[in-house]
């Protein structure tokens, strides 16, 4: 029984290495990123910029925008992405206005 996560893995894909806030994680290749992070025990994806309270995936279908993480400098919905090797996932630090430089 897993203790780190209450979620059980469904996929049996080969694992690839990604980083979360610079730390290495091995997630199933091609899996839904939000689901894979939940299985890996990551429940807090970000804090809301308004009330500074923790948030994680809620709808898992691209609607709620609660699973936002930063990838390549852009806030993305983790539930709308697939795991691929080398993904550098950053949990948005405390409330920040997006960087204006493109």
């Amino acid at each position, binding site marked *: 029984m897993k203790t780190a996560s209450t979620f059980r893995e469904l996929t049996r894909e080969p694992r690839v290495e990604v980083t979360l806030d610079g730390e290495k994680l091995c997630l199933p290749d091609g899996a839904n990123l939000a689901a894979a992070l939940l299985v890996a025990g990551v429940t807090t994806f970000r804090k*809301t*910029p*308004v009330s500074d309270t923790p948030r994680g995936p809620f709808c898992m279908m691209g609607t709620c*925008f609660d699973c*936002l993480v930063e990838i390549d*400098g*852009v*806030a*993305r*919905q983790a539930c709308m992405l697939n795991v691929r090797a080398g993904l550098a996932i950053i949990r948005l630090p405390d*409330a*920040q*206005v*997006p*960087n*204006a430089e*493109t």
Partner: protein
Amino acid sequence: MESDYVIIGGGVVGLSVAWGLLRRGRSVTVIDGDDGSFRASRGNFGLVWVQSKGMKQPQYARWSQTSAAMWADFAAELGDNTGHTVPLEQKGGYDLHFSEETLHATIDTYETLKTQLDGNYPYDVLGHNALRKEEPHIGPKVVGAILHHQDGHANPLKLLMALATDVRKMGGQVLTGQTVVDVAKPDTFRVTCKDGLTLCADKVVLSAGLGAMQLGPRMGFKAPIRPQRGQVLITEKLPKLINRPSLIARQVDEGGIQIGATNEEVGMDDRVTQPAVSALAGEAIAAYPALARAQLVRSWGALRVLSPDGLPIYQESADMPGAYLVTCHSGITLAAAHARLLPDWLERADIAPNLEVFSENRFDFS
């Protein structure tokens, strides 16, 4: 069912009037449509706005100012009564300009209006640097802004919810999912719905938004109104980025940035289009470059309810005395006036506001 008033239309306009009548002890039945109806109350931008209104009719500027001045008290009362806070911020709003020419042309028109309003038109002109002190995220393409101190913005959905709650709490009947098919006045008014339901009342208020295009003429009104589409966008929730609202963008109380709005003459079509969404996003990014990296959460279209001159219409029917047409573009801004002052006009009270300039007789129908 019988009541003093039947209000046709349960959006912000109809509910504001219903609220004011209920507070005066009148019995009220509100007839509302369904999710297939065009509902400006659910799609609007949420400004409580004074500047640029009534440039050709100072009475409209005054009416907007009157409502804006009553808004905070009105919102507080709704919040106390219902427990639903109606977020409101009135610390001024901007008209942003990307060219010196348009900025100065606008100042000229504001000066004319200010004179007509005996000086009650408090605004400041901010050059780029002054604006940047107020709005650190403003972009280099914005040459300046007019900061009007009577402007502000609210959460229009929470206003709608608070109104709908309080109207019911005060004993108002709200019938939803109904379509009115006929209004007759054999003696008292008889309002017939599609499903056969008939309601009797001493007076009828037609505040059905675009629904008045069809019903109005049958009740003796000209009801010269048309739809105008506005598309808007909203971003993910962001930390404070915009301090004061403008017609281009505002940061709502929940953190998202609402971006607006198109003005499109496309009939009864409230869809969104990709070119419009792109253009809106482009303009917002020109105003606030940081938005280039923000995620859009949703876009939607809604239909404005416009008279030929854009001003409200308040009209009693000549054919059916006791029937009133109440329609306007700015149901949010005018909500406080509609709730607090319009009932006096409907009740023919001595203190009723003079709404003569808003009669539909101002339009030439020859």
